[in-house]
């Protein structure tokens, strides 16, 4: 890689962006110093491109070109539009926490309804004290950029033993066109706690915007947690999200990630199983059409013995869309009796649809059961004909089979309202195909 590439005109644009945003970025002078350092890291690296191994299928320089300027603080008109979007995308019964163009909106949120077992702050508030949440071990350029630019986020702390009766839904709403929102959130889930936390990404009439998000999650021992991410951004938006998750002992974690929007998206996650006897399940669904590019890149790190991880990725790819799944399972030398499996299933709806799949196993222990598998194919012609012979027009027959394919993942969502909500998003994606 040559450094000169990072110093192109695009690099300058980011530099200007940071200088012009600096006055709006929350934090003490010490925090601003941390930001500046993160920004310098980003500027040195530039946007990731295909010659960086982790980004070989998702060349952000080619796909998004440049980072758009920081969105303005939402004004009254923007908040009004955001309120409409929140209404349309809120999950029945969930407690809402709303970020509009990267800024927390107390008016649109249900902070009081969270109850005494859920501690809540904004990122902005924590940065008045210290820069802790801006620091991560990663050297990835987009994470450095996020640390430099993050304007706000939610900082949740769920008490030990808390049994949350209602899910928490964090809704990211974009109202500003041709601008970026930078958010960073932290979710701390205590020992023995039970919770469902959803992150939704939606647009309120905004076009061609960018979302740069980072989420830091720590889950205590004996917990039972569902983490759901529903990325339904505008069709010409970009969404780059990084997740860092640490899981304690004897804990159950169910992830469900669905991508149903954005021209370019990348979800990259590092999930560390740090306590024995835990079970991790990840279900991913990519719904892509037109020229959309959707990348999920996950590392599951078995750092201790006796944990189970299961990853199943389904991609429905139409037109000239491109789905990427990179999954790495690391089994550390001490992590005996690890049981880690990943599976990718791609449904290709057009001859020009593309699925790239890169599974990697890095196993340093000798008594483990690990594996990966992949399937890719078109809809079954015999099933299609059966449905058509019963009166279903082509598109409707396809839709029913696609719903069945995706349904296997959706059925595993325990919360009824949430499951219905997700079915609705998938149905709207299918309608856009017509």
């Amino acid at each position, binding site marked *: 890689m040559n450094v000169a590439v990072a110093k192109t005109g695009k690099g300058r644009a980011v530099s200007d962006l940071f200088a012009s945003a600096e006055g709006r970025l929350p934090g003490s002078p010490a925090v601003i110093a941390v930001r500046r350092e993160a920004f310098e890291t980003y500027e040195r690296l530039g946007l990731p491109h295909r010659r960086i191994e982790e980004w070989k299928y998702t060349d952000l320089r080619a796909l998004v070109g440049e980072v758009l300027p920081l969105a303005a603080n939402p004004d009254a008109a923007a908040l009004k539009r955001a309120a409409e979007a929140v209404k349309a995308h809120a999950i029945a019964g969930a407690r809402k926490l709303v970020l509009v163009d990267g800024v927390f909106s107390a008016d649109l949120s249900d902070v009081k309804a969270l109850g005494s077992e859920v501690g809540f702050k904004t990122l902005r508030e924590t940065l008045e004290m210290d820069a802790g949440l801006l620091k991560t071990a990663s050297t990835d350029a987009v994470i450095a950029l996020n640390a430099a630019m993050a304007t706000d986020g939610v900082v949740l702390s769920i008490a030990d033993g808390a049994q949350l009766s209602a899910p928490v839904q964090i809704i990211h709403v974009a109202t500003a066109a041709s601008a970026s929102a930078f958010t960073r959130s932290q979710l701390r889930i205590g020992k023995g706690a039970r919770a469902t936390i959803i992150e939704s990404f939606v647009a309120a009439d905004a076009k061609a915007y960018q979302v740069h998000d980072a989420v830091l999650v720590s889950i205590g021992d004996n917990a039972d947690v569902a983490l759901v991410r529903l990325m339904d951004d505008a069709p010409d938006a970009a969404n780059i999200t990084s997740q860092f998750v640490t899981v304690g002992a004897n804990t159950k974690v169910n992830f469900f990630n669905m991508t149903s929007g954005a021209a370019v998206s990348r979800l990259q996650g590092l999930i560390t199983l740090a306590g024995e006897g835990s079970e991790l399940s990840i279900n991913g669904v990519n719904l892509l059409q037109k020229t959309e590019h959707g990348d999920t890149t996950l590392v599951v790190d078995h750092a201790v013995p006796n944990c189970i991880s299961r990853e199943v990725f389904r991609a429905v790819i139409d037109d000239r869309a491109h789905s990427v799944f990179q999954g790495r399972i690391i089994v550390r030398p001490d992590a005996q009796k690890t049981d880690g499996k990943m599976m990718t299933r791609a449904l290709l709806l057009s001859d020009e649809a593309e699925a790239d799949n890169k599974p990697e196993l890095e196993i340093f222990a000798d008594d483990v059961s690990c594996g990966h598998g992949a399937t890719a194919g078109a809809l*079954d*012609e*015999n*099933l299609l*004909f*059966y*449905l*058509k*012979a*019963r*009166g*279903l*027009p*082509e598109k*409707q*027959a396809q839709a*029913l*089979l696609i*719903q*069945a*394919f995706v*349904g*296997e993942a959706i059925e595993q969502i325990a919360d009824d309202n949430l499951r219905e909500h997700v079915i609705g998003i998938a149905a709207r994606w299918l309608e856009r195909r017509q």
Partner: protein
Amino acid sequence: MALLEVKGLKVRVEEREILHGLTLTVNEGEIHAIMGPNGSGKSTLSHVIAGKPGYEVTDGEILFRGEDLLDMSPDMRAAKGVFLAFQYPVEIPGVSTMNFLRTALNAQRKARGESEYSTPDFLKKVREVSKSLNIPQDMLKRGVNVGFSGGEKKRNEVLQMALFEPSLCILDEMDSGLDIDALRIAADGVNALHSPKRAMVVITHYQRLLNYIVPDVVHVMSKGRVVKSGGKELALELEASGYTQFEDAA
């Protein structure tokens, strides 16, 4: 006007001609049996009538109530009243039988310009029909044909026939994979659906099915043509003497 008229039908599959100018006329209310040895083109005929892809019609026509069937998509043929009961009904995991039935019935009604069934009205109708066919409700909650026995799959086909109320039912080798009890149950279902307005075309290799579904007309197919037609006694004759005599005729 005849319900179904097949005239001089020639069909190819991948360069090979399977049907060499087949002619067949079925009127409302009639039961026709099409018999013949393996490879005579019986199933090809049923597939071409239903619109299965992969067959090339090189000559001839198929008229349904005088309309050109070959011009219509398979779903349009279904909406017009053509129903093919499959020899091997497919399993569709993840699509519940109930959802499938409602989607299909409403798609047909929509195509005909009729109002779609509301969920309660549909449930009422499907309960009535399944009760009359002794189909347990829990079968309807399962994925389409998933884990069904051979007999259950055929009963599911009969259930669809009852629900969609087609005017032409083509039963493709309905007896294959069924023991005698399952065969009787399926045949009873078919007989219950026979009416002066509804015609049945029963495709079978063996005569035994015709003990349960009694045809008005029997056609013998060999090498892609109908080589002989007659009354129900023709089936018995075939049972006694086999198909060899007709293979020479073709």
